[in-house]
């Protein structure tokens, strides 16, 4: 069966400091993978490296994304190939309206894939449909990107953008943190509704809580730059109960 993304022995550093230290992860179409791990483990680094942030240096390893060498692609081409990152800390962009930039984004993605530009009418219909899906106030959809948004609104806006762009692979970086239970449900609901047999998701989270709403096919523990443990969704519960020290102790015993 084909893979959506296949990360092999990935090493990445920033400012000369190695953060990812030989990471392996494979996601197949239709799968949701949860990546959990303590603060500073390298979860956001993994997300940034996959999205193409230029500050990181890849020293070893390969990433195959639906048959393409992901690491060779520019940030925008990764997006155009169907990769989406919902940021842990979305930036505010004063003066750039959400819908305005999304129309440009969508059209540049379409152009890259040899498709026609979206008509103004179809685009607005899409905005309405997707903002309803994530229960994002249509006023927020047309306001400046994240400017003056609450923490929860920013996260919902990330999911809205994901819904608009319909990626093959979505990476959600702690989209749940800072959300109250209602917002969490809305975000999870959005992700679940967007799930198809063809696409997949990597859900990075700190807490087991989100996984009550987004049920993962696999759970991985990222610790000190590597996936050190993988399992089914029960692993998340175990982690919740025993904490990350348990992983640490297990690792130490193994050495």
């Amino acid at each position, binding site marked *: 069966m084909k893979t959506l993304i296949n990360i092999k022995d990935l090493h990445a550093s920033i400012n000369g400091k190695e953060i990812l230290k030989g990471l392996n992860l494979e996601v197949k179409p239709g799968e949701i993978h949860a990546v959990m791990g303590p603060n500073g483990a390298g979860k956001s680094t993994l997300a940034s490296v996959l*999205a*193409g*942030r*230029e500050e990181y240096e890849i020293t070893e390893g390969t990433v195959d994304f639906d048959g393409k060498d992901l690491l060779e692609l*520019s*940030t*925008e081409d*990764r*997006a*155009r190939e169907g990769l*989406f*990152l919902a*940021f842990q800390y*979305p*930036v505010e*962009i*004063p*003066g*750039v309206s959400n819908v*305005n*930039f*999304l129309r*440009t*984004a*969508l059209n*540049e*993605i379409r152009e*890259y894939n040899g498709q026609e530009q979206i008509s103004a009418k179809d685009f607005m219909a899409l905005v309405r449909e997707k903002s309803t899906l994530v229960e994002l106030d249509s006023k927020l959809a047309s306001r*400046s*990107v994240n400017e003056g948004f609450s923490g929860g609104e920013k996260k919902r806006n990330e999911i809205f*953008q994901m819904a608009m*762009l319909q990626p093959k692979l979505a990476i959600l970086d702690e989209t749940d943190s800072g959300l109250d239970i209602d917002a969490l449900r809305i975000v999870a609901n959005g992700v679940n509704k967007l799930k198809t047999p063809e696409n997949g998701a990597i859900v990075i989270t700190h807490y087991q809580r989100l996984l009550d709403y987004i049920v993962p096919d696999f759970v991985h523990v990222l610790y000190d730059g590597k996936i050190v443990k993988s399992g089914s969704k029960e692993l998340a519960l175990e982690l919740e109960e025993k904490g990350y020290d348990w992983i640490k102790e297990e690792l130490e015993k193994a050495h």
Partner: protein
Amino acid sequence: MSQTLMNTKLDQFRSKLTPSKVKIDQTLLDQADAYLNGREFPTRRDEFWKYTRLTKISNLEVNVNASIIQSVPEEAIINPNAQKIVFENGVYRKDLSDDIHQVSGIEFKEKGNSNFKFQEDVFYALNYKYSTDAITIDIESKTILKDPIHLIMISTGQGSVSMPRIAINAAKFSESEFIVSTHDVNSQNCLSNVVIEADVHENAKLTINKIQNEKSSNFSVFNERVDQALNSCFTINTLTLNGSWIRNNVRINVKGQNAETHLMGAYVTNENQHLDNHTLIDHLAPNCQSNELYKGVLDGKSTGVFNGKVFVRKDAQKINAFQSNGNVLLSDDATINSKPELEIYADDVKCSHGSTTGQLDEDAVYYLRTRGLSEKSARHLLVAAFIGDVLEKIEDEHVVKYAENALSKRYGWSF
């Protein structure tokens, strides 16, 4: 003329000019003469001209060019509803202008204006002495003009010198908008030295939208002097979309209480362009409000200057003065000298000023790229948003559209 000594660069420059034939107050003319005789062009040692050299102007080859254009170029049309007053090389072209006498509530006078107070300044003095034309537009009291009056200034030919003088009289309770725009047709090394003097009387509202869009290697000095009376509201928006060498001097004397003053500027420069914006708001009366926002984007080897002075005189209590200048440098070779200056002699005032210069927010560029935008589109969008902050505050939609289109055409930005 007999007094011309020919020993300073300014004298030499003056010897190339034709003394004005338009009617002007003799006292003013004498004052201009006395000011200019034996004087030198200001140099960079002069605080007021610290970042702008006048050497190229003093060396200009001056020509007197006959009328060339047969019609108003399409690019000079900004608001289709406006009453057009066209100048070619600083000379009023009645044949190309709308018949403004037809408009009720406006009194239009050709060939001369007066009632000016002398300004101690080389370019004002040159304009008084060598004015190529002078007009007066009175907006009669209680007149509310539906459509703007558009002063179209076109430079044509080689080395033309334009020195038009415009007097605007906004009478009590009147409301009016002026568009002033500069354009060029087959021209090179021309100089425009424009004086606009406006009196905004009690309860009057006057807006000037100034659009600078000359493409060729011309020089342009704009001098606006505005007096504001009780309860008046004055707005001047300066949009510099193109032009190789520009100096703007805006001077506003707020003489009446409860007056409101708005100054906005947006400028986008590239290549070797030089733009110098000097503004001065002089608060002479209490209970007034002034608001100034200038934003610029500089690319290539272009150089920019922003000097914004705000005076609050001793008796001008309860003044609210806000000033801000923001700049984005898109290239390492572009420079901006930004200097806000507040001089406050009253004690009960609220004033703030700020100046920022920086690059585009790289995190925002990255964020947009992760959504599929090319790096170029991402940067364009951010730059357009930065300038759009000023544009969106301009009431005349036609002016905004014109500026957006000009910038889209020149830089490929989308708003």
